[in-house]
């Protein structure tokens, strides 16, 4: 692909006309909660846009995030956004390896200085000088510090990059931290999820390419349009929650009839993500629709937040032994206080005539 080719020309070459681009822009503006009048503007901007340089660094991760973004079920414009960006460095996808790959990275950073988007998947280990994850002899911490310094913005893709994820889970042996813990002075967008919803990344990229800025973010730096509501709010099982109809096990009649999975530990009420609206695998379903409760994978520290199968209404109880000790202490203390009081108020002996 020619670096000067516009997105409109690329889409035309792929068989998508102006109508297709407009439909995509309408879908994107809708999913980004923008006014409908913005759609033609976005379509025109996208048609004129030139390739955006993206440098993608994979740190302490499992490659699941990259897999999910690459496994789009059909060649939609949404997936072609990924084709349209100039992915100048991505270790898993690039043919180059070793010193050639390192040279590619140096060239990409130099060529796009101040203009490239830096995408990160995976958390960053900082313990012991960051030795637990190295690339080409450099620690992830060192790479992030130098490459983020010249980026226009940083995209933390997946829960590991956004919040530390599973590597940060107790006891966190590598001292894993999130991207936002290390990057200062640059806009950071968190796109959490284990893995994240691909359409969220394409929406953020489409917005950035169209308007040259990042979409509105929430207090955890997540795109507000996609993370503004909870799974629970958008869940098709929600009416059953309101009716008090809960599945008691994963294969009972209630579960089959679509009753709410709250009692089985669903974390939908506390999880912000777009799974229930955008869904997965080309809009086929999402975990709750497939019969399992939400595990809250797009929230910080989800791995350490108790069992996936403990209801949100549940609590960590002190245990019968501790309760017995507390009761004993109370009884002894109360008895001591009562006896002391009795002594003070003891009636005087009756006088005998």
């Amino acid at each position, binding site marked *: 692909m020619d670096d000067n080719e516009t997105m409109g020309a690329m889409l035309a070459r792929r068989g998508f006309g102006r109508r297709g681009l407009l439909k995509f822009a309408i879908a994107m503006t809708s999913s980004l909660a923008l006014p409908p009048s913005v759609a033609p503007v976005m379509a025109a901007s996208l048609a004129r846009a030139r390739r955006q340089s993206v440098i993608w660094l994979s740190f302490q991760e499992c490659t699941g995030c990259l897999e999910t973004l690459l496994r789009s079920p059909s060649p939609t414009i949404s997936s072609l956004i990924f084709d349209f960006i100039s992915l100048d460095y991505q270790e898993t996808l690039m043919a180059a390896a070793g010193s050639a790959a390192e040279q590619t990275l140096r060239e990409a950073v130099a060529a796009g200085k101040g203009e490239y988007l830096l995408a990160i998947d995976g958390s960053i280990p900082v313990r012991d000088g960051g030795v637990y994850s190295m690339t080409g002899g450099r620690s992830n911490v060192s790479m992030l510090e130098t490459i983020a310094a010249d980026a226009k913005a940083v995209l933390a893709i997946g829960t590991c990059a956004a919040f530390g994820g599973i590597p940060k889970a107790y006891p966190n042996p590598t001292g894993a931290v999130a991207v936002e813990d290390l990057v200062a002075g640059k806009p950071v967008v968190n796109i959490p999820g284990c893995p994240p919803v691909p359409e969220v990344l394409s929406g953020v990229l489409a917005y950035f390419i169209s308007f040259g800025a990042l979409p509105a973010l929430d207090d955890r730096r997540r795109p507000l349009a996609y993370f503004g509501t*909870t799974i629970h709010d958008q869940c098709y099982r929600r009416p059953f929650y309101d009716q008090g109809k809960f599945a008691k096990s994963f294969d009972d009649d209630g579960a089959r009839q679509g009753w709410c999975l709250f009692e089985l530990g669903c974390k939908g*009420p506390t999880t912000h993500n777009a799974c229930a609206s955008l869904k997965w695998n080309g809009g086929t379903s999402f975990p709750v629709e497939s019969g399992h409760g939400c595990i809250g994978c797009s929230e910080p520290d989800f791995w350490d937040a108790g069992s996936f199968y403990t209801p949100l209404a549940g609590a*960590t109880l002190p245990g019968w032994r501790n*309760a017995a000790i507390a*009761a004993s202490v109370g009884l002894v203390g109360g008895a001591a206080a009562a006896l002391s009081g009795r002594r003070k108020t003891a009636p005087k002996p009756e006088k005998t005539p």
Partner: protein
Amino acid sequence: MTMLEIARGPAMQVSILIMVGGIGWRLAGILLLRRRPQRAAPRHGFVRRICGGLSAILSRFIPRRTFRRGTAVSVVLSAVFHLGLAVVLFGGAPHILLIRQITGLTWPGLPKGIVVMASGLTLASMIALLVRRMTHPVLRLLSTVDDYLSWLVVFLPVFTGILLSGETIGGYATLLSLHILSVELLLVWLPFGKLMHGLLVFAGRGAMGVTFARKGAAT
């Protein structure tokens, strides 16, 4: 550790232990109270005395004819409050889950709409009772810090529960945290103030009824 994790974890554990210890303290104090020796011969035997105790437990639900007019407002408001609270506590699905986790007992929950309606009635009756307490000259004179504090620690869980059900202000996690923390405040205060009547009311009425029956008084 998030606020919700603290609320569901260590805060819950500490509050339950304080409540259990406090109940032990109060029970020991009550059981070791100095009692006057009963010098008179009992008017009734064991069975009649037990019947007297049971009778006192039930009869106190209905106010005496003599006082009915003067206490009608308080009685109705209190009944609405207690019934509403019972519906919320024992009918709300999340509450049943917690009870099941502690005791293993479970039963079907009520639809959310009914629970929210009961919460609204409970809240309204509590506000009305507070207004009455603050405006009625005698009640106001008799009220202590315990009365107002006990009212507050019951009001907060009901109020945060309504906010949680509608998810009107803040996110679910924040509201759930506030709701659980407010319940924990109630648990901590329960043994040390007038809320202890929730545990002692029937035992107290029963003991009084037994004493009355022993003396041959009506229960």
